């Protein structure tokens, strides 16, 4: 049990008044950053990075990772209250979180989201503590074909999610793919679909699209409904935490599945955003109450939040052991490590024991501190819904505009956000589902690059996706998932035919 000894050593480093204070400051900043759309965790950490150069590395990373935990917690707040994802990984939280708020259960949704985040994070930290070397080796097995298999599985676990016409789902997804392909094509190094416009060089940024489609689109719809938020009259009760926690044990399987999906996506590195989508898709498929998903089911909040936070936390593992960042925020932290004079890579665990174990201990502590802080604030967050719409709507539009601008420091993105807002409104009116578009936009170019890299490696042989058990297994699972609704429909049809035959 060398790990346990090392971990207690780490606690000794992390448990000082100064470090606890840094955690509280970091988490507060992180929650604010998470709430403001556009100003993501990566930006927040990058802005504050220079402030930490004069600190000892352990204190510096405790402050910065606390910001990261805060941002992971905070992303859920606006998703639930206003249908505006503060962070890309909280898009899936809006699917059930916002309907819950409309049903007057905003406080339960918030408690559920925060608790789920905490469970996901602790699961991932335990994994880092005890299995870091094994897990790092597993991550090395991932080449282009394996990456594509994982991305394919994400899409597949999502098919059939939208209610209504499957053709509308496909149309929405294809629009997402088209938007994702604008900009530089990474494989050939040439520009695509920019039509000579410099503004389009950067492509359509996922965050700008999401802020517009969800945030502005939602405001337009609310305006039409008579300038009020549904569920604003919900009574605030102080027992929200206990009330929600009582419902959670029944969802232990969902927790477990989302934790596994999240850790896997964080390590490989797929990232928190696909993890949250996949967590939601799998829970909807396998849960007993899956049919109610999308109407305001607590389990539909828990599943993506657990997966996102597990992924966000475990994304730090490949950064520490391999030197590759599992998320954009981890990429910025990686830059920080170098400046503090630490070399990320396989030897970090051997040479910088104090730093590594101090960091791991701070992951436990930071999440506990974070959970206590956000749970105490739930009544306050929920009370925001009582502010009249005519006051809060302009504020939201304002914050959204700042968020869109911050993504790339470009005014063009603010106009783009408004265009996406109108598109979001139209989608809503015409009953086209938004999630497939968003998923294709966030994963489309990654999946395309992996696919084409795999094709380069195999010289055009599609068999490469079944060339080993790992990637073949994931692909087969993906195909099963994709055709599951069709298979199920077939089975019901057959059994009803049977029944008809027997009756006759």
């Amino acid at each position, binding site marked *: 049990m060398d790990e346990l000894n090392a971990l207690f050593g780490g606690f000794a480093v992390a448990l000082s008044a100064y470090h606890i204070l840094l955690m509280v400051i970091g988490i507060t900043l992180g929650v604010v950053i998470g709430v403001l759309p556009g100003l993501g965790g990566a930006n927040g950490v990058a802005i504050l990075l220079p402030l930490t150069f004069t600190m000892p590395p352990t204190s510096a990373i405790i402050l910065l990772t606390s910001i990261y935990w805060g941002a992971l917690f905070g992303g859920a707040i606006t998703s639930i209250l206003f249908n505006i994802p503060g962070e890309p990984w909280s898009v899936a939280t809006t699917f059930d979180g916002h309907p819950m708020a409309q049903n007057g259960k905003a406080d339960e949704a918030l408690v559920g989201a925060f608790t789920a985040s905490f469970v996901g994070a602790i699961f991932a930290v335990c994994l880092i503590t005890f299995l870091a070397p094994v897990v790092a080796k597993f991550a*090395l097995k991932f*080449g282009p074909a394996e990456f594509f298999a994982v991305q394919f599985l994400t899409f597949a676990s999502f098919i059939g999610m939208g209610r209504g016409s499957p053709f509308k789902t496909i149309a929405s997804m294809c629009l997402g793919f088209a938007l994702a392909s604008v900009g530089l094509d990474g494989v050939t190094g040439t520009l695509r679909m920019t039509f000579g416009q410099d503004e389009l*060089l950067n492509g359509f940024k996922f965050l700008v699209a999401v802020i517009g489609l969800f945030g502005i689109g939602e405001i337009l719809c609310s305006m039409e409904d008579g300038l009020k938020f549904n569920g604003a009259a919900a009574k605030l009760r102080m027992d929200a935490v206990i009330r929600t926690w009582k419902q959670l044990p029944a969802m232990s399987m969902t927790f477990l599945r989302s934790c596994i999906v999240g850790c896997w996506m964080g390590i490989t590195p797929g990232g928190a955003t696909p993890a949250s989508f996949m967590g939601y898709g799998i829970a909807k498929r396998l849960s007993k109450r899956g049919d109610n998903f999308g109407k305001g089911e607590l389990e539909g909040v828990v599943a993506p939040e657990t997966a996102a936070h597990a992924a966000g936390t475990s994304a730090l593992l490949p950064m520490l052991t391999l030197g590759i*960042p599992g998320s954009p925020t981890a990429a*910025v932290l990686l830059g920080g490590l*170098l400046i503090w004079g630490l*070399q990320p890579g396989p030897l970090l665990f051997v040479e910088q024991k104090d730093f590594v174990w101090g960091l791991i201990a701070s992951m436990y502590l930071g999440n506990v501190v974070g959970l206590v802080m956000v749970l105490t604030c739930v009544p306050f967050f929920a009370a925001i819904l009582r502010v009249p719409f005519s006051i809060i709507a302009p504020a939201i539009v304002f914050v959204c505009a700042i968020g869109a601008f911050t993504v*790339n420091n470009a005014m063009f993105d603010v106009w783009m956000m408004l265009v996406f807002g109108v598109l979001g409104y139209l989608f809503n009116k015409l009953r086209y589902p938004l999630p497939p578009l968003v998923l294709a936009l966030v994963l489309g170019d990654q999946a395309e690059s992996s696919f084409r890299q795999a094709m*380069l490696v195999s010289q055009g042989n599609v068999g490469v996706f079944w060339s080993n058990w790992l990637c073949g297994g994931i692909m087969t699972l993906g195909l099963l998932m994709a055709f599951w609704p069709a298979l199920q429909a077939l089975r019901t049809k057959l059994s009803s035919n049977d029944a008809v035959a027997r009756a006759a």
Partner: protein
Amino acid sequence: MIRTGASKARTIAIALAASACLTAPALAQQKWEPSKPVTLVIPAGTGGGADQMARFIQGVVQKHSLMKQPLIVINKAGGAGAEGFLEMKASANDPHKITITLSNVFTTPLGTGSPFNWKDMKPVAMLALDQFILWTNSEKPYKTTKDYVEAVKAGEDRQFKMGGTGSKQEDQIVTAAVEQQTGGKKFTYVPYAGGGQVAVQLVGNHVDSTVNNPIEAVGQWRAGQLRPLCIFDAQRSTYTAKVTEKEAWSDIPTCKESGLPVEYQMLRGIFTTKNAKPEQVAFYVDLLKKVMATPDWKEFMEKGAFNQTFMTGPDFEKWLTTAEALHSDLMKKAGFLATQ
């Protein structure tokens, strides 16, 4: 005790040198200082080599209070950096903007046809040249450059896979130059999003070799997972301190002495906007000299095995002209030009 004394003396010497830098140009010409925050535009994504260096400079400037106004760092990575360079071009009259370049200052306009050129900016200084090293997985039997080149020559065309960052950029240009020495056998070049990912793909044996910059693969080298075969420079590295248990950067032979006559280095330079006045350029040169005088900078240079060449003014412009012609020639031979 003696060591503490010595280091203190060195610190004082550095402080004196820094203050000398501060006063000397001030007497020589009219002094200019930024009147608002200076923006450092990074024409690349977060986490890469240029990003690391830019954020490092920002950290040093802040830590040693080298500038009154803050230095703000932003990433404008769109279109292989074209976004950042076009912004520099568009703000020709704003001397409060500087940018850090990688080879994409040459390769992006040539490869994508984006309308800009380094002449649309004002060169300030060359900070260093970043090296390229030919790496293989240490589990593979290739002990020397010769072993590897022979294996490539003996293999099927495109059998060997070379991993690199981006497409039609520095890594692929080096690969194309190596291909001219492999008896007509080409590599299958697999482009990835970032240098760190490339190194890990090599450790996982998903590609056969890479031309990673030293800083991108040093962690894996020290852990014994990767093996450096040769460095694409005219001379061996000057850093003699042990990096792994047995080897130092200076122990890596040059590619030329190993029978692979290819040389390539990447510019790490600072530019400001086109209409900047001489005293404004002088301010930035002076600032960079102060950054380079810090012990932090020296440590950073050694960690990444950078070739420390500092150039300003006409020397730098001459170097840029030559480098641009070289890139144009290399890319034309490889068929990477946007017009081809």
